[in-house]
């Protein structure tokens, strides 16, 4: 018997019990649809991240901070951004800056093409009227042109002459005494800002701090891109920087952050060398990588859904084909009496399973492409309107073909059980059976 005949017969056999086959295909479809759509979203987001990396300075762009600062941020990230402030432990740590000799060494590293120090703003803690407690503050600048996703309120005004505005993390809002997070929008919080010069000459930290007030204009859900830090607007940032550096002679103001442009080929090596010098460097890719990790975790959850659906579908295939074997006992007996080999009988039933997998995958591909297309359109018109070039879903032919092939292989495996039973049938018993 020819392979083409086997495939042809398998397909026409499927339509002998239309409803049963349809339901089995539907189960496979649910799994394949989920997995194919996931992979399309994955491709879309990856392409987006690649574009972002290019927009944000490209592969050679590095952001640096002193290693001690980096470690402190890491420990904050690991504690949801909430660590109670204590004078003993935290003194000085938040004011560590990039030293001249570090700059010199970094500049001379092989592959470093350019190196800039950035002005910075550092605060000791934040507190509110609702709490006695003080929380270590990590300040980020709201860079004009970058949009944020706010869970309450709005993003800080980026105009240099605006009032002092800040956006904070939801967890911090709670810690500051606002159980109902929305209530903090419009409220003022207090920020303790140290003056480097005064702090250098005093042991009592509170004597070198200036308390300033800023209005919380919005909150952000704790998430990957918002991180743990608070986001000050330009006016607040400049004010903090002013307090930090007041009285320092021109040229002796310290920087806490630096950026460099390096040879992308040597980037990993350079990062290692910077680490030895005492500077922690992050590339845009590293930052994207953090997002990627989070995003991958979400995809894994959905892919598990898809996998569970496929397991259920496999049981459906086994069941469907066992019923088919039972119904076609006489037919199998006749085929064998007329000289069909056991292996061909086995093949014809596994072919049926593969056909079920084939149709399930095909519908999965078609429907997920339709859904993905609609999602793309809706997304670019609404929440992704700021990124007109971003496609939420990208369907790569080879990915879809491989997924379909894997699903057909799973279907084949499921089909081997009933197919084995069919191939073991004795033609005599089948022909006597009346």
């Amino acid at each position, binding site marked *: 018997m020819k392979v083409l005949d086997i495939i042809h017969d398998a397909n026409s056999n499927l339509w002998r019990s239309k409803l049963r086959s349809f339901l089995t295909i539907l189960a496979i479809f649910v799994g394949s649809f989920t997995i194919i759509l996931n992979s399309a979203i994955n491709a879309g987001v990856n392409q987006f991240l690649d574009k972002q990396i290019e927009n944000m300075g490209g592969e050679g762009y590095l952001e640096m901070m002193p290693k001690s600062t980096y470690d402190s941020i890491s420990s904050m990230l690991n504690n949801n951004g909430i660590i109670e402030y204590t004078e003993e432990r935290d003194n000085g740590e938040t004011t560590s800056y990039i030293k001249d000799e570090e700059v010199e060494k970094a500049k001379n590293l092989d592959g470093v093409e350019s190196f800039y120090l950035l002005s910075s703003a550092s605060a000791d803690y934040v507190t509110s009227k609702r709490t006695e407690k003080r929380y270590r503050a990590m300040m980020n600048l709201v860079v004009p042109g970058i949009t944020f996703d706010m869970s309450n309120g709005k993003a800080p005004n980026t105009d240099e002459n605006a009032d002092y505005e800040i956006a904070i993390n939801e967890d911090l809002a709670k810690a500051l005494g606002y159980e109902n997070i929305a209530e903090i929008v419009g409220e003022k919080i207090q920020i303790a800002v140290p003056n480097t010069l005064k702090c250098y000459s005093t042991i009592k930290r509170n004597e070198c701090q200036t308390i300033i007030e800023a209005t919380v204009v919005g909150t952000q859900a704790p998430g990957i891109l918002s991180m743990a830090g608070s986001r000050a607007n330009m006016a607040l940032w400049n004010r903090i920087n002013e307090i930090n550096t007041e009285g320092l002679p021109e040229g002796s103001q310290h920087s806490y952050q630096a950026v460099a442009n390096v040879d992308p080929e040597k980037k990993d090596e350079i990062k290692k060398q910077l680490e030895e010098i005492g500077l922690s460097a992050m590339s845009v890719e590293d930052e994207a990588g953090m997002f990627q990790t989070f995003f991958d975790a979400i995809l894994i959850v959905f892919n598990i859904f898809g996998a569970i659906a496929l397991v259920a579908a496999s049981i459906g295939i086994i069941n469907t084909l066992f019923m088919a074997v039972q119904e076609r006992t006489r037919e199998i007996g006749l085929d064998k009496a007329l*000289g069909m080999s056991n292996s061909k009988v086995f093949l014809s039933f596994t072919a049926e399973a593969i056909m079920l997998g084939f149709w399930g995958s095909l519908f999965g591909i078609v429907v997920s492409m339709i859904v993905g297309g609609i999602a793309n359109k809706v997304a670019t018109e609404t929440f992704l309107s700021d990124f007109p070039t971003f496609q939420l879903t990208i369907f790569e032919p080879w990915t879809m073909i491989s997924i379909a092939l894997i699903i057909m292989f799973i279907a084949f495996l499921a089909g081997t059980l009933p197919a084995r039973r069919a191939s073991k049938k004795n033609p005599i018993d089948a022909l006597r059976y009346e």
Partner: protein
Amino acid sequence: MKSALISTRGLKKIYGKRDSKFEALKGIDLDIHSGESVAIIGKSGSGKSTLMHLLALLDKPTEGSIKLNGKNTSKLKQGKLNRLRNKEFGFVFQSFFMNSNDSVLNNVILPLKIAGIRRSERRRRALEALKTVELEDKAKNKANDLSGGQKQRVCIARALVNNPKIIFADEPTGNLDSATGAKIEELLFSLNRNKGITLIVVTHDEELAMKCDRQIRIADGQIVADGVSGAKHDPKLIEDENLDGMRDKNHTKEIEVEEK
């Protein structure tokens, strides 16, 4: 003397084990020659079908040997047995065994499809076989829509589509009224006469049995009589007596039983 086409010695078949053990065949010695038409006759349950299944290599004997063209079949591999049945044997059953939802043509094509023959070729041969049974105009019909007699003619077409050496027919007229049954018998005997196909008919119908060259009577799994009919239907009977040589001439291709 020419060796027998099928030759059995001490053929036994035991069904079941221990307490439920049942000896359906109790030692059958039999020689069937090429071109013969043989009736295996006996009451229901006497072991006719069991014997036919063994002769047709559909089942294995518990004891004893079956030689095909002088070659022992017990050592043949399954694949070889399958090919023998597919290419050299034709089957006709009492209850037809057709794929009733399929077309008449596809039912006749089945053995050729199993043999892996090209589409155009098998279609041509199936239509030819349908012509022999005068049903070429029903080729496109659904098998289920045919009358009993037509169904059995389709089965005969299916049995002869691969140009078999032997046709095994198990109660071929058992489900048919006598008029229709007579036509089917006519058809089978004409194949035996005109194409030299060896015919082995299992039946409990005395009348049908007597139309065969030879009657092998079975009771309780044993041969109780084996003889040539005195009431042959065919006026060419006299030729038939020493026909072996002639038959081999127009039926030159022998069944090849290689042991691999």
